[in-house]
């Protein structure tokens, strides 16, 4: 029994050595395999969720994302919707958004990019306030807080 334990221990130690050998040269392949695991995607609370509707204009594209209410086990009572303006974004933005895609406008958002001010005019009781409004590498993004 003692001998068996010893052999197992030493074998495991050498397996460790081999693992370490594979780790760095195999890093790209290993991390690629990890990235394909089913849970390896960023939670919508962070990446803003998937694009539900895209409005393409001459110089700028407007992405309305799917509202995010994601919680651990069930949806939360409050959440947000993210809107992205991509491309050559005008200095003054005024857009009316129907975030739940029911053909009824839910809020109008006004952004002055020069002064960095954002205001919202809610037309639905589910729209609360502005969560984030910020310039991004692709244009501008806004998160509007919502309740269910």
């Amino acid at each position, binding site marked *: 029994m*003692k001998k068996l*334990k*010893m*052999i*197992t*221990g*030493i074998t*495991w*130690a*050498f*397996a*460790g*050595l081999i*693992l*370490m*050998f594979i*780790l*760095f*040269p195999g*890093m790209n392949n*290993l*991390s*690629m395999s*990890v*990235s394909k695991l*089913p*849970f*390896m*995607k*960023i*939670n*919508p*609370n*962070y*990446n*803003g969720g998937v694009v539900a509707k895209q409005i393409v204009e001459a110089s700028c594209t407007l992405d309305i994302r799917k509202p995010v209410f*994601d*919680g*651990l*086990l069930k949806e939360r009572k409050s959440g947000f919707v*993210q809107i992205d303006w991509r491309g050559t974004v005008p200095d003054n933005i005024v857009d009316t958004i129907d975030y739940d895609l029911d053909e009824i406008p839910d809020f109008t958002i006004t952004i002055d990019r020069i002064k960095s001010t954002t205001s919202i005019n809610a037309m639905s009781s589910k729209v609360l306030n502005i969560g*984030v409004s*910020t*310039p*991004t*590498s*692709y244009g501008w*993004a806004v*998160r509007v807080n919502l309740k269910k």
Partner: protein
Amino acid sequence: MNNNLVSTSMEKSFGKSLLYTLPMFLITFIFISGGKVDFSNLPAALAIVVTFLFMNILYFMMHYTGKTDKFRVILFIIFALSLSFTLIKNMMEMRHSMSFSQADLLECKIPFCHLVIPMMIIPAAFTKSIIFPGSVIGGFADISSMIILWLVATLVLGRGFCAWGCFYGGWDDGFSRFRKKSVIKKISESWRWMPFAVLFMVALTAAMTLGPTYCDWICPFKAVTEFEQISSVESVAKAVVFISLFLSLVVVLPVLTKKRTQCSFLCPMGAVNSLSNKITPFVVKIDKKACSECFKCVQVCPLFALTKEDVKNGKASVFCSKCGKCVDVCSKNAIHFGIKGVPAGTMKNFSRNLFLFVSFLFISVFSAGSIINAVQSIFKLLF
């Protein structure tokens, strides 16, 4: 007896030490430089050569002198400093500030660090997603690579990750060596379970809020890496927490206690790594026949991993990071690196050589990128 006169059997002759260093020399050369150094960019080439030689000299010295921690800690501290330097330099170049912006958060551009891993497990199981605004693959410190690096390291080294891999640990390890003698000596052993309590709380709160609580509200190393832009009362509160925890647990207490207090009392990853110590092949063992029960090892252990009972039981506890400080201090050569299943007191040299090879390979290749970067910047500044 004067300890300096007692030779440890781990010492090797000059030639033998060179021979032991040769495989590390070749492997690190290939792993670090890709097999060739491009001298057309002189500062970069010099940085690679200096880093590579410096690392191998440290490894040689470990064999030649028979001391482990003495040389390990040099690399460990340099790793911590150079990583912070590289991160801050990147941030300054890209954003002209040490803080990340709302846009970085929204665009998921935050570098991922291993401390997030314990918090993402429950949410990953339930929501099939990662609760961190980073990049899944590609870019600086992406999530997949960090997971793989940590997973292999913790599987093979267990809590050895905390002495041979973590790019934060060098900070409190460094500060714990500032004074010759400790000012605060009596600390209850119960506190060493604190990281488990922190782990429990952060895992729970992270699951409930779907947010990386520890990074958001606690991590002391935000003070030397990157943190949220100060734009609200909440962000001020966070900055105060980060800075005060850094000053108290990473600077002041380590200086006063000569212990790695942040790693011993706070870090949830330390708790996870302690758990993986249960499966790792390498351990620190005590040869009870050779031990004179002077308990010097208990005194010097920076992580409260050795108690008198542990010494009497013949092995270090799960908190052991295999730093080798206790091994270096033992004049009887009773405490040594060992392999699970191999009885204490036997195959000491073999176990140490194997462990050193594995752990040094990890730290040298893992740390090479940021050290080379830091050395290159210093060269650019100087010449």
